[in-house]
């Protein structure tokens, strides 16, 4: 009797592999905890990455692993695509990048389920035979089929939904809602019921690959049908929701494959993603059901054209030269950035301007509304990219009391987050949202291109306030002009 080679027998020992999986998911959890804190986030992300490495190694050590050439091929393709994409994406294009990465994750889940079906599908729908008090299980346990089919449907929805979200944000598709109108809801329902019916039939034992593919296609249509009618501005919430979906589908795959790392990693993403989606939605005064039901969140420009005519007040317009003088002689300036700054990629120009002002002894800070821009943290990421010192950034609650002793609030492409209607007009769609109280400062300069409204599609009384001056123009060029004018003072 010859002992098997120690290394391989020990390494391929199933308990050892299971323990590696435990180590891996402990690292994921530790990483996630890190990601939740500002000082620990970088390390948290890296810890989670190490966990992923451990999980992959454990899997490759599993007994019976094979087809190494194909594995290397798949991984190589993935690295070749993923690394450059991640390295080169612009910070402002982050949301669509996350959507894309999320989509391929969902796609992987769906494909894995498909292969499971090709391999085990003929034993789906097995039954427990009982004979003389002894129970005999024949074929694959029903729950495996259930989890696998669930993963297929959700993975396919997530893949297609994420791709649509990507296309909208990348402006491959128009950002405005594309909807069937009143039939939309009914159609979504029909698609969902079709997908579920196909799933039940498969679980029940119908071994037809055509049916499985049909189910994937119906789920794909559902993913399209759900995301297409949603406006571009709601996309971050949708992406977060699809992220949670992909997590859940990964957990289901783990249940089907009896793999603890998949179960834990998928489920923590599913759970945390659900919470995160909720936090994002409430931060912008929206509810998840109303977002998924479509409407509202897209037609800013359209709705605005109507709204703009209604107001009776007058608007004071200013020039870059005047704005430069006003800023140069202020002792305290607060910059209020918004979506327009992101669109115009004006963050570097803004940083130049504030450096110039600081050189002249002006005290500068930035007031960041939690939902300024189109994703939480959007402004922080952009300003950090432009090297704005962290200690100049003020969260809303810290910024508001300071407006009273501010000479000039410089609002750059922000609109809704400064709209007093959120406080004063109960009928306003944004009523109740906390805002940055720029009207408390001694004077306000607003940089935007027109009188068009922002995301919420409503007009902003602030622009009719006598202390407000509008500087019309693209954020980046307007800010650069001010900087140029400053040199002449």
């Amino acid at each position, binding site marked *: 009797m010859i002992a098997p080679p120690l290394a391989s027998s020990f390494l391929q020992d199933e308990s050892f592999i299971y323990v590696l999986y435990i180590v891996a998911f402990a690292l994921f959890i530790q990483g996630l905890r890190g990601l939740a804190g500002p000082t620990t986030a970088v390390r948290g992300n890296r810890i989670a990455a190490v966990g992923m490495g451990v999980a992959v190694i454990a899997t490759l050590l599993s007994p019976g692993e094979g087809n190494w050439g194909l594995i290397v091929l798949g991984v190589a393709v993935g690295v070749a695509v993923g690394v450059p994409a991640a390295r080169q994406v612009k910070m402002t294009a982050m949301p669509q990048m996350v959507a894309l990465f999320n989509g391929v994750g969902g796609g992987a889940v769906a494909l894995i389920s498909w292969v499971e079906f090709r391999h085990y599908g003929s034993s789906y729908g097995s039954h427990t035979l009982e004979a003389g008090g002894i129970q005999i299980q024949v074929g694959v346990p029903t729950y495996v089929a259930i989890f696998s089919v669930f993963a297929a449907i959700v993975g396919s929805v997530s893949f297609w939904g994420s791709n649509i979200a990507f296309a909208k944000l990348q402006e491959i598709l128009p950002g405005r809602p594309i909807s069937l109108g009143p039939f939309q809801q009914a159609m979504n329902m029909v698609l969902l019921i079709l997908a579920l019916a196909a799933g039940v039939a498969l679980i029940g034992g119908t071994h037809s690959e055509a049916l499985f593919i049909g189910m994937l296609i119906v789920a794909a249509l559902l993913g399209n049908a759900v995301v297409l009618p949603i406006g571009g501005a709601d996309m971050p919430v949708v992406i977060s929701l699809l992220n949670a979906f992909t997590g859940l589908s990964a957990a289901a795959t783990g249940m089907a494959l009896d793999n603890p790392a998949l179960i834990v990693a998928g489920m923590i993403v599913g759970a945390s993603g659900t*919470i995160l989606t909720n936090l994002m939605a409430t931060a912008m005064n929206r509810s998840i059901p109303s977002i998924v039901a479509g409407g509202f969140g897209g037609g800013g420009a359209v709705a605005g054209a109507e709204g703009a005519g209604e107001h009776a007040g007058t608007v004071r317009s200013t020039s870059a030269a005047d704005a430069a003088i006003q800023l140069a002689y202020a002792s305290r300036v607060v910059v209020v950035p918004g979506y327009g700054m992101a669109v115009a990629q004006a963050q570097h120009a803004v940083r130049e301007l504030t450096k110039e002002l600081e050189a002249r002894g002006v005290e500068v800070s930035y007031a960041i509304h939690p939902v300024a821009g189109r994703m939480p943290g959007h402004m922080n990421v952009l300003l950090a990219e432009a090297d704005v010192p962290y200690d100049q950034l003020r*969260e809303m609650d810290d910024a508001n009391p300071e407006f009273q002793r501010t000479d000039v609030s410089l609002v750059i492409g922000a609109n809704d987050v400064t709209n007093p209607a959120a406080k004063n007009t109960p009928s306003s769609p944004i009523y109740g949202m906390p805002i940055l109280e720029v009207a408390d400062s001694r004077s306000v300069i607003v940089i935007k291109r027109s009188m068009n409204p922002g995301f919420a599609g409503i007009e902003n009384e602030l622009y009719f306030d006598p202390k407000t001056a509008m500087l019309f123009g693209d954020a980046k060029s307007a800010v650069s002009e001010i900087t140029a004018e400053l040199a002449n003072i």
Partner: protein
Amino acid sequence: MILASVLTTNLAILVLAGFIGFVVISKVPNTLHTPLMSGTNAIHGIVLLGGLLLMGLPGLGAFSKALLVIAIAFGTINVVGGFLVTDRMLEMFKSKPKPKGEGSAGEAGGGSGRGAGGEDGGKGTRP
């Protein structure tokens, strides 16, 4: 005394993991939402493991193998891209040494290249 079946123990693990997800996230500052979405997005790239495991099945047909190669590539993109992009985002939150020669020339569409450059610069000089 042994109550466990594969399904029930995995259910227990699922429930515990769900709680962990809920509890950890209930206290995240607003500004970290985007990196967090991106980081968790990378974590569910764990589905890669499913593709790797199934590659070990005996008697896979050519079409199944092709599907699995795609699944592995997709999973790898999700993992690698997700972690890298999160890292880049988070690096931006740190204070960095001011890059030399950053004049008003360095504004325009070159934002992406400069972003990455800034990150590496930061890495090199951080203590």
